[in-house]
């Protein structure tokens, strides 16, 4: 179809989409620093993860006990990872994200760090001597900074110019689920459970999970998971199209390696172009999710819920 035959509104929409994509690429590059040459390293050993090149596959192992909670340490390492991937990934043709932690892929955001680092200070500002609109603005600014960084990382993984496979097991909750949703394909072992438990904390998922699940599966599934907080097992997740393959316990990485080898057989530029076409970033929805999350973080409901979680000695804090 020639440009002339396309209505001007459609042309404008396409132009805006291209502009948005360029802006995202710029944001990803700008916000993902190259620290001490880390972005050039084909082997990395960090506190939350390690990665190395295995043939043409970059294998990223999440290894932080108890269940790969995502806080500032994991965020900084993910930034280095995304920077490395967007600077050639040492020649890798595929990336596998997996966990060596028995409990699962990731339980999501580090709620203790979130509580101690942000909400507790916010609460002190409300009830203590530090109460001032300026302080509250500063806290909101800090939350915005963290969310902007995590979104840049997730967008960077989502738009990585190679095939990204999440090989998941056990708990894949909240931010961990959102991390898995950045992958192009999810391979899940039978122990996997996916959930968005954020409403229990007075929040919505804030790492881009809702727009990505909407894009990949559909809004009815989002509502079911979001509004009930229930978890899905791997089999059900495959039935709804979220998971590509369900495998025996402990076999997700092996199967993902085979898949990565297959993906590496194709021309890299063809893969990059096909992926860009098949997996558009839901830019506007991501922006709105960020705004909503930041707005909700200021609520006393969140502070109370986080405090309850952090101080709980119940063996069942994750059950409704």
């Amino acid at each position, binding site marked *: 179809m020639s440009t002339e035959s396309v209505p001007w509104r459609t042309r404008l929409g396409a132009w805006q989409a291209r502009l948005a994509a360029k802006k995202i690429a710029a944001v990803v590059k700008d916000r993902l620093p190259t620290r001490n040459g880390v972005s050039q390293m084909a082997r990395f050993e960090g506190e939350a993860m390690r990665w190395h090149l295995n043939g043409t596959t970059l294998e990223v192992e999440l290894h932080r006990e108890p269940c790969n909670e995502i806080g500032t340490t994991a965020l900084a390492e993910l930034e280095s990872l995304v920077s490395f991937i967007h600077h050639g990934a040492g020649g890798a043709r595929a990336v596998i994200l997996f966990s060596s932690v028995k409990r699962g892929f990731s339980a999501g955001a580090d709620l203790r760090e979130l509580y101690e680092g942000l909400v507790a200070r916010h609460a002190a500002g409300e009830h203590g001597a530090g109460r001032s609109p300026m302080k509250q603005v500063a806290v909101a600014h800090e939350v915005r900074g963290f969310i902007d960084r995590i979104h840049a990382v997730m967008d960077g993984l989502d738009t990585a110019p190679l095939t990204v496979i999440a090989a998941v097991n056990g708990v894949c909750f909240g931010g961990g689920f959102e991390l898995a949703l950045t992958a192009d394909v999810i391979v899940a072992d039978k122990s996997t459970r996916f959930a968005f438990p954020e409403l229990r904390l007075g929040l919505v998922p804030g790492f881009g999970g809702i727009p990505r699940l909407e894009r990949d599966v559909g809004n009815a599934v989002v509502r079911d998971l979001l509004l009930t907080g229930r*978890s899905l097992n791997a089999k059900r997740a495959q039935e709804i199209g979220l998971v590509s393959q369900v495998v025996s316990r402990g076999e997700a990485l092996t199967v993902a390696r085979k898949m990565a080898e297959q993906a590496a057989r194709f021309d890299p530029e063809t893969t990059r172009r096909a992926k860009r076409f098949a997996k558009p970033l839901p830019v506007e929805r991501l922006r709105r999710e960020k705004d909503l999350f930041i707005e909700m973080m200021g609520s006393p409901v969140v502070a109370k819920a986080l405090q309850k979680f952090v101080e709980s000695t119940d063996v069942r804090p994750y059950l409704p």
Partner: protein
Amino acid sequence: MKREDLLKTLMTLAAKRFERDLAELQPSDDFFAKLGIDSFQAMELMTDLEDEFDVEVPDYELQGVTTFDGLADVLERRL
């Protein structure tokens, strides 16, 4: 499936998953206490049960459920 068969199967799965002697488990036992498990491990058990009985059990139906008998009630509604 008869109730007693259901209970036996779920207690067998629990004993196997958490390496306990089946003879030590009773339907009225608090499975958190008896098996010494936390919420993550309880989810592992539910995953085993969903797989075994080919059902889907929403987490919220487990609210307040602490005994094998209670688990059997939840599963029975889905079979």
